[in-house]
């Protein structure tokens, strides 16, 4: 979607619209590539499984960033700062909760065996 609407401005210039569409197309192409790679590797199994898993992880994370940048318009400008701070904090919490859960549960599982 376009940037958050401002009452005062009437965005009618075709140049502005063009640059926005270009952003979405770039994002779409990047996303396509970053999807094709992991799917292709799984389909053809050209690498060892553990390596494919690493590529899946990297491609997925990169594609998420692509979406944030090109579709959600999250950049380093001051207007995005509040949202970026919230996202970074959420990312840290996600890492702790996801990682912590896996650490605890696999530790328990191991000891149950």
């Amino acid at each position: 979607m376009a940037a958050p609407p401002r009452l005062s401005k009437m965005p009618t210039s075709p140049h502005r619209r063009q640059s926005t569409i270009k952003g979405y197309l770039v994002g779409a192409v990047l996303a396509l590539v970053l999807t094709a790679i992991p799917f292709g590797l799984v389909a053809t199994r050209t690498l060892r499984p553990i390596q494919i898993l690493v590529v899946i992880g990297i491609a997925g994370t990169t594609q998420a960033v692509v979406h944030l940048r090109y579709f959600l318009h999250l950049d380093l400008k001051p207007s995005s700062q509040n949202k970026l701070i919230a996202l970074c904090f959420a990312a840290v919490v996600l890492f702790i909760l996801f990682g912590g859960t896996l650490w605890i549960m696999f530790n328990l599982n191991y000891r149950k065996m």
Partner: protein
Amino acid sequence: MLGKLTIDALPFYSGIAMGGALIVVLGVLGVVALVTWLGQWRYLWTEWLTSLDHKKIGIMYVTLALLMLVRGFIDAMMMRTQQAVALNSDGYLPPGHFDQIFTSHATIMVFFVAIPFLVGLFNVVVPQQIGARRVAFPFMNSVCLWMTTAGAALVMISLVIGNFSTAGWNAYPPYSEAQFSPDVGVDYWIWAILLSAVGSMLTGINFLVTIVKRRAPGMRLMMMPLFTWATLCTNILMVFAFPALIVTAALLGLDRYLGMHFFTEGDGGNAMNYVSLFWIWGHPDVYILILPAFGVYSEVVATFSGRRIFGYESLVYSTVAITVLSLVVWLHHFLTMGAGADVNAFFGSAAPLIAIPTAVTIFDWLFTMYRGRVQFTVPMLFTLGFIVTFIIGGMTGALLAVVPVDIHNTTFLVAHFHNLLIPGALFGYFAGYQYWFPKAFGFKLEEKWGRRAFWAWIVGFCLAFIPLSIVGLMGMPQRLNRYYDASWQPYLIVAECGALFILCGIIFLAVQLAASIRNRAALAVSTGDPWDARTLEWATASPPAAYNFAVVPHVHGIDPWWAMKQAGAAANRPARFHDIIMPGNSSAGAALGAMSFVFAFAMVWQIWWLAAVGALGMFAAVLSQTFRDHAEHRIPASEVEAIESRRILAAPLISGVPT
């Protein structure tokens, strides 16, 4: 047609159950009759139930909390009595009842006393403290209030129709699964939790955005009052912790309703994951409960020492440190459940780290009082009582952090967490209630009965819980409905006496309220600033106009109201007034709450057509509001001027930007 609901759901199987049901039914009928007799339905509807004014919503939250405190305390009284008499005997409470009571006691106290109380204080105080006229999302504020009330109503109706859960307030599987708890008790718990959790999570979003976006011009983050800082941190925790509770309750619900295997005993269920998920919410939750209390203590200590708070920055950093740390240590609630030494060591040593910022906070308060002119008002008494007892509670926590020690899941643990919840959180809320009551209503609460209430509460707390620590060290497990060790009984009898003191404390609070209302003319605060306080909420009238500030002040530092009074600017009248736009009333919030109750009740009893009606009703209520873009009304400048001139003394008016 009516799902699982049959005539057997009525509590005719037990005298005690019938008694409980009767009290609820008579209570509700009594209130309805009273309002009808006084002819106040229209007033209640237009002034309170449909109000989007954060101050009124706050008062309703605190009212809910105090009412549910009475219900939760009755549960506690019944448990203490049972334990005092049940040596080598069955006592008077059958085990099924006892189990329901300890479950509902904790569920009510955490979700329908503590959380509404602190959210109520946020609502009444924070927008005024930051110089705002309203919260960011007034309609959502109303929705949260009514959903929380619906959750409380669901717990209350379980006394009349059906029964409540016997699985403890944390509802651990596999006991809480359908195989071992086939009746509707755990379902009541699940839906009450979900209603409360969604309400709390949305409240978190509301106040987070309000504080970030609606501060008065010039108020930087490091100029905010400490109660506002505490609120900001608490709301961050609410936003990030309550999703875990929603997931936990929802997955348990999926197991029970759709036969899934998240936590079942076989077929690939993993009950330990429930425990981990629950405490991912549960640990931040205890900080959600305590941080607002710390915020209140900071305000009270500064005001009643007549000094600026000592170490403002260190208090802010400590609050933030507590917030961050609380997200990382949840395993210490299940240290004995079999994780390896490395996992236990990490969580076991990270947990006591919280003592460092807590100690900094307490020392800052003590240094504020040192060389201050301390007034022993009722809020200050609660604060001092807290400081003395909380430290002990923290130290018992350090003892519990030792994994191999033999006191886990005993009454020592019960004493530990009540030590933090009663003198810690509850005294903070009481102090806030006493401190900000004149702001909300225009007259102070009566000192004499307030003092008596404080002493009854603190003596009661000590008498009730010190014996429990001792008997826990002697080996008594928690949640025991009868026992055979005679050496425990004397302590449990003393604990019962403690509960009676607390009963007096509650009665004294009620008497205080009644006496204050009766004497309100004598106790009135004409200046709006009865305590000669320091923060912005005391700049508005008491009670404030709907718009709080006629002119939003420009803030230049900490304690802006104090600065204004020193500069003599407090008495200035603004040169001219302007129109103010405020949110109008809306019945959609109350409607959504009512529909959510219908939905949840129907889901408990599996009356699917009624659940669909409830869900559609909720959707309709939301829809009616989402596309309403012009729901405000404009208060013309002339009316603002008229309201301001009616304020008795000139002192509370603030000058804004010169026009």
